[in-house]
């Protein structure tokens, strides 16, 4: 049984002009010890999807699903009190903005210890020892001294390491990292990613990595789910998706990346024409069809999920046309 099983997740947000269908029937599963990367551009619903798993959606958002279970526990019917016990202890989250994700009024040590002590009945000294151990593990020198510092005294990279250490305080089974490196310098990005990958392996955690950076996905993900305009358009093993991208959007994304040696200097990079559609009101058909080179009349109808190969699905009715064009 999968550690996390999400089926037909829907997130609606009532807005002035109707209902914003932020996430539409998204399904995926994460096994123990596995890394799933959810890829998509801003507004594709990838962050909301992760917040929905943690039950941390903004109050106005409405969440529905055919199934949402974590290690056999049904998260849809679980009372808030029970959910709170899972949050932070068995599933933890790392956010995009290390600069603003730590409370400016409390020391690092206070915020780290709290993460453990709100779930486990341990002494202040034990929590402190665990905090020092984890700060050292995430590569922070002088951990004992750091515990007494406030967030504003730390750089962005250090703060993100603190966030990672905080997420690990209770040894979670699942860690959700929502664009953990987006706000950091490129050199720091690589370090943080390597650290996350190592820790994941070391602690046998499952990880959901939310990103818009396909380079990141290629390095650390076992499985990939590509989201576009609130829908999951393609999913499969990272190897399969990179080898045979089968949704026009995924192909478009991959074409945007320059490849050293293959992309000539000065050559124009691939771009996807057009704009992301408005998600307010009733949606019908493929959301990508107004930007797609393979669009046909049937793209406005119901879109079924097609299997490209075992474990590799794509939400596109023009698979054959695409294959002919490539061949």
């Amino acid at each position, binding site marked *: 049984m999968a550690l996390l099983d999400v089926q037909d997740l829907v997130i609606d947000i009532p807005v002035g002009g109707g209902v914003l269908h932020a996430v539409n029937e998204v399904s995926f599963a994460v096994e123990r010890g596995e890394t799933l990367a959810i890829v998509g551009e801003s507004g594709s619903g990838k962050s909301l999807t992760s917040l929905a798993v943690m039950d*941390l959606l903004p109050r106005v958002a409405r969440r529905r699903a055919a199934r949402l279970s974590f290690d056999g526990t049904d998260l849809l019917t679980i009372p808030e009190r029970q959910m*709170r016990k899972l949050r*932070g202890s068995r599933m933890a989250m790392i956010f995009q*903005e290390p600069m603003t994700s730590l*409370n400016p*009024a*409390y020391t690092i040590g206070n915020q780290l210890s709290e993460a453990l002590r709100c779930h486990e009945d341990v002494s202040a000294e034990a929590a402190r020892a665990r905090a020092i151990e984890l700060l050292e593990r995430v590569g922070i020198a002088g951990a004992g001294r750091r515990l007494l510092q*406030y967030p*504003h005294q730390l750089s962005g990279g250090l703060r993100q390491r603190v966030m990672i250490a*905080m997420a690990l305080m209770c040894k979670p089974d699942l860690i959700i990292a929502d664009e953990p490196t987006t706000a950091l310098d490129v050199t720091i990005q690589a370090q943080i990613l390597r650290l996350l990958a190592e820790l994941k392996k070391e602690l046998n955690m499952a990880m959901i990595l939310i990103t818009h950076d396909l380079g990141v996905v290629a390095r650390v993900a076992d499985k990939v789910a590509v989201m576009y305009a609130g829908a999951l358009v393609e999913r499969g093993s990272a190897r399969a998706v990179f080898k045979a991208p089968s949704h026009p959007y995924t192909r478009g994304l991959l074409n945007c990346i320059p490849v050293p040696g293959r992309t000539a200097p000065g050559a124009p990079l691939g771009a996807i024409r057009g704009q992301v559609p408005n998600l307010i009101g009733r949606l019908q058909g493929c959301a990508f069809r107004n930007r797609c080179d393979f669009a046909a009349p049937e793209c406005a109808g119901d879109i079924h999920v097609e299997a490209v190969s075992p474990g590799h699905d794509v939400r596109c009715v023009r698979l054959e046309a695409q294959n002919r064009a490539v061949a």
Partner: protein
Amino acid sequence: MLAYTMQRLIVALSVAFTVSVVAFFLLHLSGDIAISIAGPEASPAQVEVVRHQFGLDRPLLVQYLDWLWKAVRFDFGDSFYFRDTVVSLIASRIGVTLTLGAISLLLSLVVAVPLGVLAAVYNGTIIDRLALSFSVIGQAIPTFCLGLGLIIVFSVTLRWLPVSGASSWKHYILPSIALGWYAVPAVMRLSRNGMLEVLSADYIRTARAKGLAPGVVIFKHALRNAIIPVVALAAVQFGFMLGGSIVIEAVFSMHGLGYLAWEAIARNDFPVVQAVVLILATIYVALTFLADVANAFLDPRIRLA
């Protein structure tokens, strides 16, 4: 922290100095003091005698420096009207005003901060709207109207509390409510807006993601940050209350500093007026300074900058 405190202290002292200049010269702008003291029937010769007797014939700067030098040693001279020194007059009155101000401030904070937090946590619901309506109504009622209303209901009709005076703790209940009421809307709105802003901050989401209980998220993580601007406002409000207590002390016949100021103004008792203005302003400046220091304790970004 020390550098910050020193910097705030220098600012406070320069404000206090400015206030002393204003308090001194304002009275000299209101006309010839010697004529006011001597009275309307005095002959020019008598006015000249008074002018010399009170040292009013000296250059203004000399008079100011003389007054300031005595003021810093708490010597404000004698009252023109009361047979007493200004200092002992003020000493006998200041207790009532400070007690009234402190109780009123405490009362308004105890009501306004929780109400603001509640309104923010239940933002957009009926609770929020009730709290906001309450603050609008609060702002619309003048202090003296509320004071008279309270007297009519609780003292005259129900006979639960005394009408006027300041001789027991019971005497402080109605005036404190009337005076404290004045600060509630502003403090409530600031607490509410501060909380609303903080509750949507990333670190609150982090706190929730840790699995903390809502109470811990709201009181430990949100309120601590939202309260920082409220501290500064509370100091300002306390200053306003000391000033506003002139009205309340008159309504409830409490013999405090405000009442003394009112009596002194009505009788051209300049040394008393000057001293009261200077003392109230200095308390105000001192409070602002204390609020700055308190904020440094609450916000490590100020303390450790």
